[in-house]
């Protein structure tokens, strides 16, 4: 297949570029992967991601240079079906699951993916946040029946692994055009204080510290204590606080902090809570952690103008917008959401959907 090849340099933004390549059907070549580093080339988690993408698709050709500093991927079709993948312990399951979530709705058969590894770390969304916040974002685009994330076993970073999740995703013919511009007001806050193989009191201490800030705002706050023991706790100790805030228009903001050596449960809780307030204060209908997912689904939407009000773009979002144009030729229009309010910083993102149709889909 001699089609166009989109070229990049460097290891940054690897995941979203691979996703764009597979969805657009355009081959991708990336060189200069840590080529100036003492230890050049792809890391184990990046190689593992490439293997996972190979499993989820059919006919994908991946070439890696001898030094590991360059890759070429010629995408096949997204085939889906039942799959199992063991993730290396250098990154959490979220690293691998986030790109799969972007691909799965456009698969030939529904994805039923079991991932084993670490469920929570400092770098990517935890399995819990993906379940409670990321998946509801897909529902905005009409991806809902049969969408599920089952967390079988939780486990933490700096650990020996042992976590396991299963991701089930329905397939769609086409995603709906988004029109999400009313942020509404925050009406409820939910959270889970996890304590895995530590003093169960830790979760109560986190809840109390978080409430000391949040109680002032609204009465509808439930922070659950989730204490894992025995077999279901995976293999390593730790604690974390995951919180989400929901608005009257179903906007979801989330945050999460996980235990670090020498940091008290109260301080972890304060970190998570204050970072949630930061997200809320930035405004819009989608938090910064989900900007890319929303923008991607907007581009793939039916041939109509999709609109979403969101906070200012992160560096990753800016690059994603540029890369989307490389693969799909679509640019977004980005203007102040409320021109009458000079202090508001949130923006209105709009684009004309490409009318992407899932041609892989089994019609049977």
């Amino acid at each position, binding site marked *: 297949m001699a089609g166009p090849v989109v070229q990049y340099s460097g290891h940054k*933004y690897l995941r979203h570029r691979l996703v764009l390549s597979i969805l657009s059907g355009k081959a991708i070549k990336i060189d200069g992967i840590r080529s100036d580093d003492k230890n050049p080339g792809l890391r184990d988690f990046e190689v593992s991601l490439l293997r996972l993408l190979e499993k989820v698709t059919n006919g994908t050709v991946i070439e890696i240079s001898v030094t590991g500093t360059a890759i070429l991927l010629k995408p096949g079709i997204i085939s889906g079906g039942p799959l199992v993948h063991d993730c290396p312990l250098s990154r959490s399951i*979220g690293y691998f699951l986030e790109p799969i979530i972007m691909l799965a709705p456009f698969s030939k058969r529904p994805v039923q993916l079991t991932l084993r590894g670490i469920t929570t770390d400092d*770098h990517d969304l935890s399995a819990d946040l993906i379940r409670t916040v990321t998946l509801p974002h897909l529902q905005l685009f009409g991806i809902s029946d049969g969408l599920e994330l089952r967390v079988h076993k939780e486990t933490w970073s700096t650990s020996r692994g042992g976590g396991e999740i299963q991701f089930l995703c329905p397939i769609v013919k086409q995603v709906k055009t988004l029109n999400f511009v009313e*942020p509404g007001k925050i009406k409820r806050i939910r959270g889970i204080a996890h304590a895995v193989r530590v003093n169960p009191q830790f979760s109560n201490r986190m809840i109390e510290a978080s409430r000391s800030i949040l109680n*002032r705002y609204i009465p509808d706050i439930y922070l659950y204590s989730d204490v894992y023991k025995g077999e279901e706790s995976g293999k390593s100790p730790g604690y974390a606080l995951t919180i989400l805030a929901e608005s009257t228009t179903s906007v979801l903001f989330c945050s999460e902090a996980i235990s670090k050596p020498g940091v008290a449960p109260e301080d972890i809780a304060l970190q998570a809570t204050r970072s949630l307030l930061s997200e809320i204060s930035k405004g819009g209908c989608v938090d910064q952690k989900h900007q890319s997912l929303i923008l991607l689904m907007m581009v793939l939407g039916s041939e109509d103008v999709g609109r979403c009000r969101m906070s200012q773009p992160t560096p*990753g979002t800016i690059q994603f917008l*540029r890369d989307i144009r490389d693969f799909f030729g679509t640019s977004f229009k980005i203007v102040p959401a409320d021109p009458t309010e000079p202090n508001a910083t949130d923006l209105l993102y709009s684009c004309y959907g490409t009318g992407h149709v899932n041609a892989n889909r089994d019609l049977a």
Partner: protein
Amino acid sequence: TVKHRRTRRDWTKDIYSSDLTPEQILSSSSKPQQDGNEALDDDFFTVKQSSKIYANTDSDLLEFADRSKDPSAFSSAELSKWEDEEMLESIRGLFITGAFVDGELADE
């Protein structure tokens, strides 16, 4: 000065028609408009600068560059502003209870 503040940046133009790195675009958003323009005029040097910036970034950031949790969200500057009572009150209007409490609080 009101007029100056109203001069908004053109995000569409900065993202699609400039050679600035994403980090440069965002760092110029907090500065006066002038800075952004200067950088735009000087495309040639901008590119060189950016490669230097990458080389100096610490290894942990380089290693985990592709991540969805932005570490700056947990920076002490970002978190410590919420220790301030006024700051905490400033977002009350974003909660359902804030709609009618707003007026009362303003009098306090």
